[in-house]
């Protein structure tokens, strides 16, 4: 059960018009190497599902700036003025969800369920009255499961079976996206032999993973960003 693949071949499975979940909250967990390959191959009309739009010039922002993305399903893009401008000019469609609801919609698909009922933002402008039902005598918002053709994820370690471990805040949406997407492509900083991850410490079981590729951490996108640390 060897899931190691060449990066270019793994990304070549993605066609124009695909819906792609991308791990990462800000930079940590963003699969910069997989995204760079997607930029190089040039697939278009993509729908991207990611917590944020990264920052201008890196990660999914590069795909958006290159015109490869038609729609972004996200939670918050406040750290990316270029993407905000593309949204405001109508060049990029953006759907916003509350952050934890976005996470839960992804997980809901991952759990093989259709939707969930929530009271978050029920009476706010984010709720389309058409999504409100009465349930047990009170209103509830139906939040549809959010699935995708692909998930692109960054892991700290992966074994040949596809078991994944994430590190620190690079975990974020990745375990949920691994569950939700039809085809899950992972870049791992460390590829380790099957059996070297304690079964109790696996964050994503290999059943959810289709391909594991190498991550080249020499890309500066994986390093520290200036101005974000204490003086």
């Amino acid at each position, binding site marked *: 059960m060897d899931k190691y693949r060449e990066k270019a071949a793994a990304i070549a499975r993605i066609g124009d018009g695909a819906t792609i979940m991308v791990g990462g909250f800000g930079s*940590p967990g963003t699969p910069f190497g997989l995204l760079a390959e997607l930029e190089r191959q040039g697939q278009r009309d993509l729908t991207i599902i990611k*917590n944020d739009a990264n920052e201008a010039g890196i990660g999914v922002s590069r795909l958006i700036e290159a015109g490869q993305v038609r729609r972004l399903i996200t939670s918050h893009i406040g750290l990316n003025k270029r993407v905000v401008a593309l949204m405001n000019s109508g060049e990029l469609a953006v759907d916003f969800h509350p952050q*934890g609801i*976005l996470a839960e919609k992804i997980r809901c698909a991952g759990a093989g369920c259709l939707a969930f009922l929530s009271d978050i933002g029920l009476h706010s402008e984010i709720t389309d009255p058409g999504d409100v039902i009465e349930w047990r005598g009170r209103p509830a918002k139906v939040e549809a499961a959010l699935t995708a053709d692909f998930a692109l994820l960054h892991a700290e370690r992966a074994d040949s079976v596809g078991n994944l471990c994430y*590190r620190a*805040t690079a975990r*974020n949406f990745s375990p949920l996206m691994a569950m939700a997407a039809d085809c899950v492509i992972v870049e791992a900083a460390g590829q380790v032999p099957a059996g070297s991850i304690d079964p109790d410490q696996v964050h994503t079981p290999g059943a959810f993973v289709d391909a594991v590729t190498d991550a080249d951490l020499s890309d500066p996108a994986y390093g*520290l960003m200036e101005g974000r*640390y204490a003086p």
Partner: protein
Amino acid sequence: MPPEHLLRRAAREILPGQIVNLGIGLPTQLMAYLAPDADVLIHSENGVLGCGPQATAAEADPRLIDAGGAYIRTRTGASFFDSAVSFAIVRRGRLDLSVMGAFEVDALGNLANWKIPGRFSPGIGGAMELAQKTPRVLVLCTHNDKAGRSKVRRRCTLPLTAERCVSRIITDKAVLDVTAEGLVLREIAAGLTVEALRRDTEAELLIDREPEEF
């Protein structure tokens, strides 16, 4: 009053044993006012319980940030988890306190802090869930905006983050409690008169006892 004063006052709201989320902006700066051994766990919605202060370049780990994007350290007893678990903590009501910024906050405890139609709409992030589900929401903001307009209002005019969610408001000018009767003035900035505060505040202020200075 310098923001240090405001932050020092606000830091006293965080009690031993509490689990607290600090919003981006002013609230995050509270971290610097907590004792290094304070018995609190700071939650960050990107998947940390037990955030420590901002890390220096030498300490920083590129995989470890807070929800605002700053590199952080962790405290003893920290844990990492995914975004679904992170918001399960929020929506299940396991936070004791959320400290949030505001564009507007009103006498009913309504909060508006995510959108200015036509000018600013970067998405809701985690604010709606934090505001709606944390048992105690503390708003931390300047009393007036740069144009001098009161952020403390009879009724919010901007799209709401959540309704009737705020318990207490701490600004550079006052500490106000949201009660069934309206906003009650608890403390006033040193050197400010109640009359001057009322001029700077669009909402009605109730006074049931002499406000303390802070």
